[in-house]
């Protein structure tokens, strides 16, 4: 362990979407803040493997339906006024829209189509529509078969109608976590990657955080460690909760212009099936629902993948198994103290738990504001910085630009004209800019630029991207990892194996 001690006013532990949003919020003020992340990049944990939905409107009601356990009459259960969690979700979602422009990140709003198979489904849909009206959720309409077909010609003919909610939106969560962190860094916050907290000591007036990368002396600590928030809380003896969750397996398919809206079945208690079109021609099939056995269980299983694939003919007969690009598994987390709400509290002076319960993506910007307010309550002085720059520079996604803009860029920098990733059409200069913006690992490049995201899964571009990264970072390609720590990609140069033993033999 290195003996270096970093001094900071606020240390945020955990660079998921929550921690990254918090550190950006902090960077608006005249203070000294840092983010401590154990992985090789921000958003590499639960954020990376979340389905990317920013719920609005009807999703609150479908979520209430799925979670119904029969304790009160169903309609009353649906009609409950919005709680803090739902309000944070709504506020956060709105902020994503205003931030998309300044953080230079993508957000699409395809809307959600709830599909009805039979009369009972239509009754459920009418009920939900009634509740939506009562709760003043706007942008909701009931559709017949024709209406469904007009929106989604490829859905199974068995669906007789549906409900459309124009609010549902989709983002690529990890790239947003990266964006928040990068903008915070531009504004003076420090981001420490591959830095794992090993222990926290309470001292007089500060906390001493020990990591594999030196120690941090912090007046305030925000625990946004996601899945591991309980373990961080334990270090200061405030763990009266555990972080638990459900494991969810998801598929990524190629979307050949087949699905245009988020699709789901009519919600029923304990059932949720989602088909999510992304901004980049893929389709996410979500998700299985299994108990989480251990926190690093990111495995997919044969049964899980088969179950997800079996939904396709039932919903989208034109989508073939051959369109499968990738599968992954994520977590729907909750804290055991209040499984239905976020745990935002200050159990000790200067120590704040920011433990979110799924869904945690949408509310992140709103939670960040809430946490900063709580820090102020704890005594942190907040003076707005006049030189705060909300704009985060990121190379434009070249292929989506209009022709004149493409050609102007190529004239200024010919590397924009050199395509490196053929599936997602990413140029050499976009890779270089991503590195200059702070990306150090292959996965960060993948999520920032989309290189390696397509159907060939990096088969064509990996060797090219490694070369460009190595050039930018002035290192040799074997030093570059997939996502930090031991995730090396190349073992070494050819003819290097056995060199050590040869050297020994020579002696």
């Amino acid at each position: 362990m290195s003996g270096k001690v970093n001094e900071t006013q606020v240390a945020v532990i955990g660079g998921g979407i929550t921690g990254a949003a918090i550190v950006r919020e902090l960077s608006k003020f005249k203070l000294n803040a840092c983010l401590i992340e154990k992985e090789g990049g921000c958003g590499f944990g639960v954020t990376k493997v979340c389905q990317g939905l920013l719920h609005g409107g009807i999703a609150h009601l479908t979520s209430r339906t799925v979670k119904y356990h029969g304790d009160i009459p169903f309609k009353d259960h649906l009609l409950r006024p919005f709680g803090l969690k739902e309000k944070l979700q709504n506020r956060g979602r709105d902020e994503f829209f205003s931030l998309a422009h300044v953080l230079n990140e993508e957000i699409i709003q395809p809307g959600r189509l709830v599909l009805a198979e039979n009369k009972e489904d239509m009754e459920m849909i009418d009920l939900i529509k009634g509740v939506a009206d009562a709760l003043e959720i706007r942008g909701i309409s009931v559709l017949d078969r024709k209406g469904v077909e007009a929106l989604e010609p490829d859905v199974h003919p068995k669906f007789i109608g549906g409900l459309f909610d124009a609010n549902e939106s989709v983002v690529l969560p990890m790239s947003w976590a990266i964006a928040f962190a990068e903008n915070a860094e531009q504004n003076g916050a420090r981001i420490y990657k591959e830095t794992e907290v090993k222990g926290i000591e309470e001292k007089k007036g500060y906390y001493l955080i020990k990591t594999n990368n030196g120690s941090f002396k912090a007046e305030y600590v925000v625990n946004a460690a996601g899945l591991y928030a309980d373990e961080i809380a334990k270090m200061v003896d405030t763990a009266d909760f555990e972080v638990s969750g459900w494991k969810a397996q998801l598929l990524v398919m190629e979307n050949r212009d087949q699905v245009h809206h988020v699709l789901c079945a009519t919600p029923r208690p304990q059932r949720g099936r989602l088909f999510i079109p992304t901004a980049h021609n893929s389709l996410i099939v979500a998700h299985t629902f299994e108990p989480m056995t251990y926190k690093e269980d990111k495995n997919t299983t044969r049964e899980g993948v088969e179950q997800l694939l079996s939904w396709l003919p039932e919903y989208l007969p034109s989508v073939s198994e051959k369109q499968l690009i990738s599968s992954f598994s994520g977590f729907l987390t909750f804290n055991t103290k209040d499984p239905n709400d976020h745990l935002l509290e200050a159990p000790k002076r200067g120590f704040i738990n920011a433990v979110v319960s799924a869904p945690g993506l949408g509310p992140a910007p709103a939670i960040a504001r809430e946490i900063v307010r709580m820090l102020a309550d704890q005594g942190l002085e907040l003076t707005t910085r006049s030189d705060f720059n909300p704009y985060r520079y990121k190379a434009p996604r070249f292929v989506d630009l209009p022709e004149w803009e493409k050609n102007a860029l190529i004239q200024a920098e010919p590397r924009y004209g050199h395509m490196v990733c053929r599936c997602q059409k990413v140029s050499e200069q976009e890779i270089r800019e991503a590195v200059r913006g702070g990306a150090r690992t292959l996965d960060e490049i993948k999520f920032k630029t989309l290189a390696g995201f397509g159907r060939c899964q990096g088969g064509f571009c990996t060797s090219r991207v490694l070369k460009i990264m190595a050039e930018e970072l002035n290192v040799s390609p074997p030093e570059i990892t997939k996502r930090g720590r031991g995730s090396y990609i190349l073992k070494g140069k050819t003819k290097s194996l056995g060199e050590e033993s040869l050297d020994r033999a020579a002696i």
Partner: protein
Amino acid sequence: MITKEVDLAIIGAGPAGMAAAMSAVEAGLENIMLLERAEYPGGLLHQCIHNGFGLHYFGEDLTGPEYAERFINQLASTDVQLCLNTMVTHFYPDRSIVAINPEWGEFKVLPRSVVLAMGCREKTRFATGIPGSRPAGIFTAGLAQKLVNVDGYLPGEAFVILGSGDIGMIMARRLTLEGAQVKAVVEIMPHVGGLIRNEVQCLHDFEIPLLLEHTVTEIYGNDRVEGVKIARVDKEGNPDMKSERIMSCDCLLLSVGLIPENELSVEAGIKLDPQIGGPIIDEFLQTSFDGVFAAGNVVQVWDLVDNVTLDGEKTGTSAAKYVAGDLKKQPKEIRVLPGENIRTVTPHRIVGMDKAEIALRVQEPMYKAEVRVGDYRKKYRVVSPTEVVKISLESSDLEAFREAGELTVSCYQRGKEEEDA
């Protein structure tokens, strides 16, 4: 936007595209543009530093780079406009092409004819549905080949190779020569996926274990691959979980098949053969669009580069004929159908009056085989699904089918029928 008008635009400067360009030049076409996304022509031949190329076409045993070099040199002596670092981004039904390169920016090509020669890509881990974790250390065999042979880096030191396609077997040998350990080549089928000569020269000669009727059922490792689970499979290809065992390794290579790269064809609306994945073609290698031809692995994944070259040459000649208005079609076509023990057969239809060359792959290996089309017979000592069989039907052979409008290609075992008789 810069606009270029050409007689022939060829997409892809691999062996198919280069051969198409050369034969189009020989057929008298003048204004030819060859579009290539890589920084050099030759396609994947550059990373295929092993020998065995050109045995049929040149009657010589060449390495991949040597084979490519011959065509590159030939091209250099012509007026073919070779655009490197050029990615074609769109291909439209009116045959127009949009491409991007550092020199011209985004530009448009208006060709009178087009040859599609985009080649193929490798299937990924997920196309095979292997569950487990997602660590670093999983590569397609072709990517590993580029890393080792072109870039000079080793992707690992202890390998398991899933699939016994040619690239997988060749990489098994290559990695062994590099001092790495190849623990096993695992193949789900009862026979290897690639050429027999590669099974012998790459695996047996180097004592690399070959596990037939086995598959990888799970991948282990958080940051980097630490091992894989291997199981025996039954006749339907389902793994027998009781036979599962763990094999430690730091790298898993996949050689599980190739897919013709047809995203541009699909964008334009060219009809594809759903089984093979390539465009539906006639004997001139013309697709469902007039004046658009397709050659090499973009049509079907060939066994030998020599065949890809021959395919490319055919399209160059056809394109030249098309531009000159000499590509004569019959009002009534003959559909070509796969029959007994035939997995794939191309072309899909015969539209002209002259002879037609037919390429087929059998379903099951067969000794003492005989390929039949009506009264046409051709005998083979052995046929295997891994090797393409070519037959040539004369105009007189085809006459019998013109009325019916279809013909069926079949493959039977000789001895068996003789015994029955």
